[in-house]
């Protein structure tokens, strides 16, 4: 299962993580986000570090990372954003960014 990232756990789970982390910014009312979800879950099953940010519940995280369009997927390595995908993104592209 993909984790749920919030302002409270973002630093420990994402910024201080040892492995690369995929963060999926989404919302319940966003069709493309719902269709992105299975891909994100597959990556979580494949032992990647994966988590989701519900922009409705975490507007400050969305604002901090300048999310203007969802789904937006970010990859963090060593506390830094190393990749950004806007719109529905394939598993292969995300997997490549997580290497």
């Amino acid at each position, binding site marked *: 299962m993909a984790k749920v990232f919030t302002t409270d756990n973002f630093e420990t789970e994402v910024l201080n993580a040892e492995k690369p982390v995929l963060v999926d910014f989404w*919302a319940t*009312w*966003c*069709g*493309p*986000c*719902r*269709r*992105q979800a299975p891909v994100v879950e597959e990556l979580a099953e494949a032992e990647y570090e994966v988590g989701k940010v519900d*922009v*409705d519940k975490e507007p400050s995280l*969305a604002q901090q990372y*300048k*999310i*203007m*369009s*969802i*789904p*937006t997927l970010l990859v963090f390595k060593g506390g830094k954003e190393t990749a*950004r995908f*806007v*719109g*529905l993104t*394939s598993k292969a592209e995300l997997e490549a960014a997580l290497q």
Partner: protein
Amino acid sequence: MENIIIVGAGPAGISAALYAARGNMDPLIINTGIGSLEKAEKIENYYGLERPLSGKELFERGLEQARALGVRILDAQVVGMGGFDTFEVKTTEGDFEARSVILATGSKRASAKIPGVKEFEGKGVSYCAVCDAFFYRGKDVAVLGNSDFALHEAEELSHTASHVTIFTDGKKPEFSKENAIDVNTMKIQAIEGDERVQGLRLKGDVSLQEAGEPQTSFAPAEGVFVALGTAGSSEMARQIGAELNEKGNIRVNEEMETTVPGLYAAGDCTGGLLQVAKAVHDGAQAGLSACQYVRKLLKGQA
């Protein structure tokens, strides 16, 4: 709830309908107009034609053939697509829900390339008002376009944004209903901003320049929603979340399925050979695939 909605009534859409109808799916065709066949004066290279047919003639024959099989055809423009597990097709003639959708509206008419659109994607430029209106609460936004598609996006945004303006980029507004949304018909020179969109640079018209006024003006906007022309297959695919390829065509597999289960695409909108023969093949395949998909879905529910 419809089993299969086919958007587009050209060679791809009609072929899909023939196969779906034979598969007892009672498909509904949304006829969005003739598309690129209109420009084909003579078609000579299609199987079985002993004399050339005009594109218009072929299109009319296709419609008649589908009608003869009892296929329902609705003349309408699609203004939006949505849905989570099923598909919601919003049209100028009402909204429909379907288990499966086949996109076959042809290739996108070359839309004006406005500098900055690509550059600011995800930084203020968006293609889906329903998805992204949230980020523009209390902000000024612009919608690019001049048809009901743009109007629909603008209305969607008007619930959250503080102010919405439709920019037609010099084109005449073609809205089928009265509306209260501001419209600006000046030509757009570029979308400007630094890290994020800040607004639109507009070209002044000749009379302004003659009067010694500045040649351009700036319309501030924090968000720019692109809804140019009529909602083509690519725009619909994007709103649902299906992937496009590098050329902006819809990505499909051999079954003509997009990256969204239950959503199919056929004909010119998938790229490749822009020929009637290819569209007919694509449509046939998409029709068969959609039948299979819906049958499986219904079996699962039973």
